[in-house]
């Protein structure tokens, strides 16, 4: 599904990723862990095409397409979703209007007609119920005045509505209490199926108790320095990065 080769990324002239390789096949869940400043968020932005993240070398191929030629919104149209570490507030725009605009844009990209208002409302209500979101939240402005947990839950509702084939979840678990963590994990697990893949970026092992990854990678100094299965995450938790011989650079 996703093939990243020798990826070099600069932000404001600073080299962040320095030759990263990553292969994610259909149906796989990968977890990326790593010390602060290793380039985890940069990787998620580079995959999703955030302006200002300059790819100086390497390639990103998604479903056989050269992803680097596509704009951020086109990549979303291709079925890529990014769950943000810090979901942004958009004052005055209700969640429901935002999602409707997003879904119809994605559908337009795929040459599908707009979703009828009634169908849309039915869908969003059922998704909100699945993820235990108060329907009143749908009327509120996007993330405005939401608690940390509510924001993350909102990301899961958006993901569920947009129904991506590949999701990058950037520290979606940080700042969550155990109940919220369970809901987020539940949202991720719902997406899991042989046709879809997920990349989970996390600091902590605890999310991986709920979402069991097929592969765990350690990202340090702009490269993947170690890969393994879930046991690698458990070892990291016990021994720390130093135990694996990785220096933690302060961001």
């Amino acid at each position: 599904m996703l093939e990243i080769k020798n990826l070099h990324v600069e932000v404001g002239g600073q080299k962040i990723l320095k030759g990263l390789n990553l292969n994610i096949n259909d149906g796989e869940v990968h977890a990326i862990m790593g010390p602060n400043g290793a380039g985890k968020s940069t990787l998620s932005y580079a995959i999703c095409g955030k302006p200002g993240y300059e790819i100086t070398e390497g390639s990103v191929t998604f479903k056989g397409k050269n992803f680097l030629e596509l704009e951020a919104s086109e990549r979303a149209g291709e079925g890529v979703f990014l769950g943000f570490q810090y979901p942004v507030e958009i004052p005055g725009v209700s969640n429901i209007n935002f999602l409707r605009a997003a879904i119809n844009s994605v559908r337009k990209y795929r040459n599908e007609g707009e979703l009828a208002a009634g169908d849309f409302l039915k869908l969003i209500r059922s998704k909100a119920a699945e993820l235990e979101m108060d329907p009143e939240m749908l009327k509120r402005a996007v993330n405005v005045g939401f608690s940390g947990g509510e924001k993350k839950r909102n990301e899961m509702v958006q993901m569920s509505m947009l129904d991506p084939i590949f999701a990058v979840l950037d520290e979606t678990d940080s700042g969550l209490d155990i109940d919220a963590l369970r809901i987020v994990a539940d949202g991720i697990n719902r997406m899991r199926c042989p046709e879809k893949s997920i990349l989970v970026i996390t600091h902590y092992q605890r999310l991986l108790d709920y979402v069991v990854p097929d592969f765990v990678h350690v990202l340090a100094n702009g490269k993947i320095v170690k890969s393994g299965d879930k046991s690698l995450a458990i070892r990291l938790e016990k021994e720390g990065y130093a135990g694996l011989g990785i220096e933690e650079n302060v961001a």
Partner: protein
Amino acid sequence: MVSTLETRQAVEEISSDYKYGFVTDIETVKAPKGLSEEVIRFISAKKDEPAWLLDWRLKSYKKWLKMEEPDWAMLDYEKPDFQDIYYYAAPKSADDRPKSLDEVDPELLKTYEKLGISLQEQEVLSGVAVDIVFDSVSVATTFRKALKEKGVIFCSISEAARDYPVLMKKYLGSVVPAADNFYATLNSAVFTDGTFVYIPKGVRCPMELSTYFRINEANTGQFERTLIIADDNSYVSYLEGCTAPMRDENQLHAAVVEIVVLDEAEVKYSTVQNWYPGDKNGIGGIYNFVTKRAACRGLNSKVSWTQVETGSAITWKYPSCILQGDGSVGEFYSVAITNNYQQADTGTKMIHIGKNTSSTIISKGISAGKAQNIYRGLVKVMPNAENTRNFTQCDSLLIGDECGAHTVPYIEAKNPTSQIEHEATTSKISDEQLFYCLQRGLDVEESVSLIVNGFCKEVMQQLPMEFAVEAQKLLGISLEGSVG
């Protein structure tokens, strides 16, 4: 936009043949360039006006000659040459107008399409010569009939001068006096047409009154004059303008709007202004110098101004409320968008004279490109205005780093019981907000439009439904190309 320059050249060519006097050709009736007493007499005669009105015009003209163009606004533009303007030109004949939409600027048509305007309406707006009776005419006729039954007068101001002299004499210039300011005085001398509305006692106007219904009737031109009178216990909602850009050959617009609101009456006045803003390099564009003022003369009377200003190169406009009647209420809701080299100095004046009067000001300024957006507002409480309240909120949104937003509030409170609140914020569309939208599949233009519409929500909510949807699209269109 439509060939403003070409048309001007064409007009100049024609007029050179007529340099010795006034044109009385049936096809092209126009006064020569420049302003003089003769031109004013010509206009007045063309309109078949009563003597008192000609007199009023001439007095205004004499006052205007002694006035100077104001320069206190934060606007930078070349002052118009008042002798280089045509003050009267009859609408163009069918022969001069585009024969079909194929002859209309494709850019203009693209905008119409984005606004979802029907082909038939596109023809009307772009000035295509259509000689079949189209829908809007019959709509307008039905509409007039319904108004007549209620006793509502809705006609051109020239008609009113002939048919309703008592009302006209009593109220014309009673809110914006002839010598009020440079541009209002100019308007008083040369106004070519405009709208007159009278809502009788106890009548709730059965429909929104819209200038749009008068489009095909008259080319209201650059010096428009509007007078609205809401008698006791009446209500009217009036829509000015149109979200679609219209063919316009005049660079200078100096309109005057006067509203009189009597006991327990309410007037809601909504404007969408989308005139030619000039090109990306700041060449061309309309100068929009407007004086709009409402006098809440009656007990518990209310006036509400809502404006969405997206067009014009220069906007100079302060729709104001004189809150004279005890318990009267004034509201001002404004969205002003400036992009490229546009400049807007706009705001309101709330003059509290009566007791227990209250006013609300919500202003949303959006700047993009190299544009400057200024909110300028006065809240004045007179010594006898007990227990008055004002709430002002001014928010500015910047897109890019070459534009500017400025807030200039003036507060004069002369009564210690008054309560005045002022809040102001300035924010930017952040890269994070934009990327968030992009990642959800919206393209750049949709994203900016969504964020801006969210920012303006409180004002957009005030617009009548039929206007609001188009106005929302318009915000997006006005900001096209402002990001990325």
